[in-house]
C-alpha cells in the first residue's frame, strides 16, 4: 500500500435518504484504491450497507456522485456495472445446480459452452468445491453455499467485488476459516473488494483499510493497526477494541503532548488531533497498556486507583477500577503474577506511558454514547 495507487471507486459528497426526512448516508467522501480490500465497518443502521447498495446500483444516491474507474455511474443500471456481489443470504438460485448458478453470468455474456465449462471448473477450484457442479444449493452446507456465492461473484472476472456481511450466518470456526479464504482469493486475483461487516475483529483480520461508519458518516478511514493505535475520535476508540476514556479539559500543550485535567488530576497524553488549552477532550488508554502496581517512577502517568472488582479470564485478569474519579476504568493484567496478588477493594497505583494515553476529539452532542 505504499506505491501511489489508482483510485478505483470514488464517493463524492454522496447522501442518501429513503423518505426525504431521515438521512441514512450524509455527504460521504471515500476513495477505494485498485486491488485494495476495504471494509466498511459500523453498527447496524450506520449506512454502510446502503453505501454498498448504491455502489452496486440497487439504490440511487439522493445527491452526490459515485465514480467507478473514473466514470460516473449514476445512470448505469446494476447489470451494466460489471460488479460481483456476494449477498448476506447468498442469494443462490435455488432451482439451478451449482454449475448452472456459475454459468449464468457467463451465458448472459454470450460465452461459448466450452469456455463456460472451463471457467466454472476454475472458479470451483478457486473456492475448493471441485466436483460439486451437479448439486443444488439446498443440498450444500452453509459454508459451501457461501463458497458458491463467492465463486459466482468472481466467475465473470469483475474488477470489483462487493460483499455484504457474507460470513454473518456462519458459526465462529467456519467464519474464521472463511475470512482467511476470502483474503487468500482476493490476494490471488488482485480484485478490489469492498466488504461490509459489523464485526470489528473480522474487519481487522481481513482489511487493507477500514472505514468506520457511524450515523451515516465515516469517522475514520485507516489501516487496521492505525485504527487501533491512533483512533482520532472517541467513537472509533470505543468501537475498535476496548478503551478507557477519561474526559477532561486541556490545561497545557507542550509539543506533541498535552496536559489534561481529569477529576482534579493532571494526565499527560499524546496529541493525535490538534487541540488547544481549554478544549474539552477525551484521553483514551488501552486496558492492556495499564500497569498495575508498577515500580514507582517508571511511567509518565501514575495515579491511585481503587479496585472495584476482578474477573478471572484464564490468560488474564480484568480489573475494574476507579481512576481520576472515573469509574469503570479497565486494566487487563496477564496471568503471571498469579490470581490473588491483587484483591477487590485494594488501593493500588496504576501507570501508563506518556504515549499510551491519547487525546481525542470527544463525540459531539449529536453522537451520544454507544
Amino acid at each position: 500500500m505504499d506505491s501511489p495507487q489508482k483510485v478505483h471507486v470514488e464517493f463524492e459528497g454522496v447522501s442518501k435518504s429513503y423518505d426525504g426526512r431521515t438521512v441514512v448516508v450524509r455527504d460521504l467522501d471515500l476513495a477505494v484504491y485498485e486491488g485494495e480490500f476495504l471494509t466498511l465497518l459500523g453498527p447496524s443502521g450506520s449506512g454502510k450497507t446502503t453505501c454498498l447498495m448504491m455502489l452496486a446500483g440497487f439504490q440511487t444516491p439522493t445527491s452526490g456522485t459515485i465514480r467507478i474507474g473514473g466514470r460516473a455511474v449514476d445512470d448505469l443500471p446494476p447489470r451494466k456495472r460489471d460488479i460481483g456481489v456476494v449477498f448476506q443470504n447468498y442469494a443462490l438460485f435455488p432451482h439451478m445446480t451449482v454449475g448452472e448458478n456459475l454459468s449464468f453470468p457467463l451465458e448472459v455474456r454470450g460465452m461459448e459452452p466450452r469456455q463456460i465449462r472451463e471457467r466454472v471448473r476454475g472458479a470451483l477450484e478457486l473456492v475448493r468445491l471441485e466436483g460439486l457442479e451437479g448439486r443444488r444449493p439446498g443440498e450444500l452446507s452453509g459454508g459451501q453455499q457461501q463458497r458458491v456465492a463467492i465463486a459466482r461473484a468472481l466467475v465473470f472476472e469483475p474488477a470489483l467485488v462487493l460483499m455484504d456481511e457474507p460470513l454473518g450466518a456462519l458459526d465462529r470456526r467456519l467464519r474464521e476459516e472463511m475470512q482467511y479464504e476470502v483474503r487468500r482469493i482476493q490476494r490471488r486475483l488482485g480484485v478490489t473488494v469492498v466488504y461490509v461487516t459489523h464485526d470489528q475483529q473480522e474487519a481487522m483480520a481481513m482489511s487493507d483499510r477500514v472505514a468506520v461508519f457511524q450515523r451515516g458518516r465515516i469517522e475514520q478511514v485507516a489501516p487496521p493497526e492505525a485504527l487501533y493505535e491512533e483512533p482520532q475520535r472517541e467513537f472509533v476508540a470505543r468501537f475498535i477494541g476496548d478503551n478507557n476514556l477519561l474526559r477532561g479539559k486541556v490545561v497545557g500543550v507542550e509539543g506533541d503532548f498535552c496536559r489534561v485535567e481529569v477529576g482534579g488530576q493532571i494526565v499527560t497524553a499524546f496529541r493525535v488531533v490538534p487541540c488547544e488549552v481549554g478544549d474539552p477532550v477525551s484521553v483514551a488508554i488501552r486496558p492492556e497498556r495499564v500497569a498495575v502496581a508498577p515500580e514507582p517512577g517508571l511511567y509518565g502517568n501514575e495515579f491511585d486507583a481503587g479496585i472495584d472488582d476482578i474477573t478471572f479470564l484464564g490468560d488474564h485478569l480484568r480489573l475494574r477500577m476507579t481512576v481520576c474519579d472515573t469509574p469503570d476504568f479497565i486494566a487487563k493484567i496477564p496471568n503471571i503474577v498469579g490470581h490473588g496478588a491483587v484483591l477487590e477493594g485494594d488501593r493500588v497505583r496504576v501507570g501508563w506511558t506518556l504515549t499510551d494515553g491519547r487525546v481525542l476529539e470527544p463525540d459531539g452532542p449529536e453522537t451520544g454514547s454507544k
Partner: protein
Amino acid sequence: MSGNSWGRVGRLGYLAYCSAVFLFLTAPILVIVPLSFNVEPYFTFTEGMLSLDPQAYSLRWYRTVAEDPQWLRALANSLVIGFAATALATALGTLAALGLSNPAMPGRSLAMSLLISPMVTPVIISAAGMFFFYSDLGLAQTYPGLILAHTALGTPFVVITVTATLSGFDPNLTRAAASLGAGPVRTFRRVQLPLIAPGVISGALFAFATSFDEVVTVLFIGGLDQRTIPRQMWAGIREQISPAILAVATVLIAFALLLMVVVEWLRRRGNAKPA
C-alpha cells in the same frame, strides 16, 4: 379415567358433527353422480337403482351427450374461450403481481383492490356493465368479447396466487441476477418464473375453472354461437329436462376434482421447496 372417556365421547361427537357438515355440503353434488347413470329419463332414483339392479344403470345419457352436436359445440366453445381467457388472465395477472410486489410502487393497495374487485362484485353487475360497454364497442355476442369478460373474472385469481408465491420470493435473487448482468426479461424467464411457477399454474387453473363454470356473463354477452357448456346446461334445464345434464354435471365434477388435486399438489410442491 373418566376424563379420558369423556375426551373420547367428545372426540366422537366432534367427528360426527364434522361428518354431518361435510355431508350437508356435498350431498347435493354427490346425489347427481348416480342419477346420471339412470336408464330412465327421470331425475329421481328408480326402484331398480335403489336395489342396485345393474339393469337400472346405463351410460345412455353420456352417449346422448357425446353424440349431440349442440353439446359438442358447447364443449368446443368452453375449451376455446377457457384456454384463451386463461392465457390472457395468467399473463396479465402475473405481470400485475410482479409490479405490485415492488414496495417502491405507488398506490399499491389501491391497484390491488381494483384488480381484485371482479371477485367481490356480484357477477350479474359486472356482466350487465360489460354488456352495455361491449355493445358499444361491438364486442357483444363475439368470441373476443366473451374471452375478455372471462379474462377480467379470472385475472384476480392469478394476481392472488402469484402475489402469495412472491411473498416468499427473495428479492436478492432478482438483484443477484442483475449484478450478474441479466436484463429484466432474462431475469424473469430464468430466475423469477421458475420459482413462482406453482403460483402461476394454480392461478391459471383457477382462471380456467372460473371461465369453464361461468354462466352469467355468457348469458349477457354470448350469442347463440358462443354457447358454452354451462350455458347449454342452462338451456337444457329450461327447455328439455333430460338426465343428459346430469351426465355433463358428473363430468364437470370429476374435472373440477382433478383441478383441485393438481392445485393442492402444486401448493405442496411449492411449500416443500427449500427457501
